[in-house]
């Protein structure tokens, strides 16, 4: 009998060790989330993703440290949470576990999803208390478009990008094109690309994996209007303009043969450009720093060519705040967001990372002026923002986006025809959005 008791004791000890460990873990995370501790200091947890190359975690951590120095009563604890997708997943898990982060950077397109989860706070009260709309109106409207629903603002733009046209000036010279005159219309794009094409080099590449819908959005915007309503409850996929836009995309490879057939990988398109395998490409401004560093030839950056008008969707991440945190911490979090988006910091962030500075006043900062002077391409993205629009963001966003991506890829790979495919996609999307239109 004593033996049994003894072994029981051993087993219980073993289990308590295990549970001891796990409870230790959870209590430490609780502390971080709980914030206000006995000394009156407010602790904030801050989730952020990294989506581009470079030592971004160091820069973010450094900014948080600076904030902590300026605000001795607040301690921001930055938590690197992987990719955008991972960050959303982690935030979602934290929200369900009733321990949401105090502030987080997530894709601007998560807006409707986060609202459907009832996870995020509208920021209007903070804005009103903090000098009113002047602050918000300083952001480029193209960036702010993904933050606002029904007149309310839910997120603040932070690391933002847009699509621009990169072109190889040396290649332009080589075929007798003026390197200072990039194509401004779809027709020019086709004719230039045809001239630039030769053995081993394509005229232009538009990536068609990962962010297929984003590229399509650009073409759609240039041919008329955006793909969704502002409240994210409706999409307009099968309009004749959109069919025309998609046909144009397909024709670039099938008819004009200036673009490789099949799906062009998001990540390899910039490599193709740098290797001289394509003379022009559509890509994110997030790649500006990379291309600048790696290009062994003279390159230019231009507006995406227009059909009816210029147009490009924005992209990237915004600051969000979450329900279920106490007021003191919400105030501190707002303070932190304001700090991170101050014009001089927005300017420095843009210079350091290649993201587009989100505020007009940032371009008045000395650092930014100098940067633009040395590297005029940086200004192109800003100037194009005049034609910038919200990125595709709807209710049931994940499903709708995937549906559109799949449809586009099926057309691009020649499995279906534009009109028919978009019509089918429209029907499916309507079904997906039906619950939100009740």
């Amino acid at each position, binding site marked *: 009998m004593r033996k049994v008791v003894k072994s029981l004791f051993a087993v219980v000890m*073993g289990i308590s060790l295990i549970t001891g460990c796990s409870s230790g873990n959870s209590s430490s995370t609780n502390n971080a989330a709980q914030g206000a501790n006995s000394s009156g200091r407010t602790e904030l947890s801050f989730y952020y993703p990294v989506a581009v190359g470079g030592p971004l975690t160091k820069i973010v951590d450094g900014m948080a440290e600076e904030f902590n120095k300026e605000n001795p009563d607040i301690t921001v604890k930055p938590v690197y949470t992987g990719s955008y997708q991972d960050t959303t997943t982690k935030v979602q898990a934290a929200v369900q576990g009733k321990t949401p982060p105090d502030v987080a950077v997530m894709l601007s397109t998560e807006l409707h999803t986060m609202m459907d989860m009832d996870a995020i706070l509208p920021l209007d009260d903070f804005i009103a208390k903090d000098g009113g709309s002047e602050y918000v109106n300083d952001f480029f409207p193209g960036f702010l478009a993904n933050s606002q629903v029904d007149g309310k603002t839910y997120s603040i733009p932070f690391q933002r990008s847009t699509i621009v046209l990169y072109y190889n000036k040396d290649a332009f010279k080589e075929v007798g094109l003026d390197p200072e005159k990039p194509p401004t219309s779809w027709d020019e794009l086709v004719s230039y690309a045809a001239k630039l094409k030769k053995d081993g080099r394509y005229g232009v590449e538009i990536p068609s994996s990962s962010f297929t819908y984003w590229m399509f959005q650009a073409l759609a915007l240039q041919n008329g209007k955006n793909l969704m309503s502002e409240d994210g409850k409706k999409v307009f996929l099968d309009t004749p303009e959109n069919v025309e836009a998609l046909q144009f995309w397909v024709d670039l490879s099938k008819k004009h043969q200036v673009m490789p057939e099949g799906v062009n990988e998001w990540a390899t398109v910039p490599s*193709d450009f740098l290797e001289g395998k394509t003379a022009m490409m559509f890509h994110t401004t997030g790649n500006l720093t990379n291309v600048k560093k790696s290009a062994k030839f003279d390159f230019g950056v231009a507006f995406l060519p227009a059909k009816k008008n210029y147009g490009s969707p924005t992209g990237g991440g915004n600051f969000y705040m979450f329900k279920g945190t106490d007021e003191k911490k919400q105030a501190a979090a707002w303070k932190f967001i304001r700090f991170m988006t101050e014009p001089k910091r927005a300017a420095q962030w843009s210079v350091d990372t290649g993201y587009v500075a989100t505020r007009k006043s940032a371009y008045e900062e000395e650092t930014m002026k100098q940067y633009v002077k040395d590297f005029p391409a940086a200004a192109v993205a800003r100037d194009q923002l005049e034609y910038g629009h919200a990125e595709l963001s709807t209710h049931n966003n994940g499903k709708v986006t995937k549906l559109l991506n799949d449809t586009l890829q099926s057309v691009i790979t020649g499995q279906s025809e534009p009109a028919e495919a978009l019509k089918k996609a429209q029907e499916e999307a309507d079904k997906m959005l039906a619950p939100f239109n009740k």
Partner: protein
Amino acid sequence: MGELRAKWKVNMYAWLLLLPSLIFLLLFTFYPVIQTFILSFHQADLGSPEPFFNGIDNYKQMVEDEVFWKVLTNNIWFAIGTVPTSVALALGMALFANKALRGKSFIRTAYFYPTVVPMIAVANIWLFIYTPEYGALSHVMEWFGKGDMNWLGDQKNVMWAMIFMVIWKEAGYFMIFYLAGLQNISQELYESASMEGASSWTVFRRITFPLLMPTTMFVSIIAFTNSFKLVDHLVIMTKGGPDNASNLLLYYIYETAFSFWDQGMASALTIVMVVLLLLVAAFQFFGMDKKIHYN
């Protein structure tokens, strides 16, 4: 009376020893499976703030979902493409690595190394290999005048590209099991066979292969479950595209759960996958086990 107590003591002791692993099993396997099972009968997506019971609606919807059938078919082809080939290749490699006199350890390492590399890294390597125009494979294909083959961007090629990569990745791992299996076969058996003048093919067919059957069975199960479990490469290489041509069941579950936030459907899909794997494991264990010799 005393006997009963002694019996109770032994039983008690056994249960105590099992307790820790049992607790973990309950906590991290059975409980989640049951939860998932329950959730699969609920509508729990972005459109419904509070999950509610909806019977077998999720399963009905699944049957009507083209993408579901597509990923399931894909997965079956993926399994058919990877399992027999990687197992056969592993066996071949093990036989060769076992026989090679010179550079034995080099050969083993060379065969094994793809296994050590994380799937994410492997995917990045092969992403480069499969790049059209200047990828490593394209350089080879150029000799045949097919340098511009778009391996990942074409619905017809992408599955083959994935299958090939996974075979490359997995065969070395399975080879290790076969090497261990070969070590377990007594040298005397081969010597005895050589006294009889049996050809190497006869020796393989009548001795080596039957005696390796336990290994083959074990490896096949691993390979098969892996063909349902391995999806890391999709994240890096294709995101399931183009148009779901390379999408697999588990990645679709991931998309449904963490991109569509449709937890009810994701649960239903998970249950389908669990049942599928259980069926196959049961078939392999109970159906084939009888024909296998264990020492």
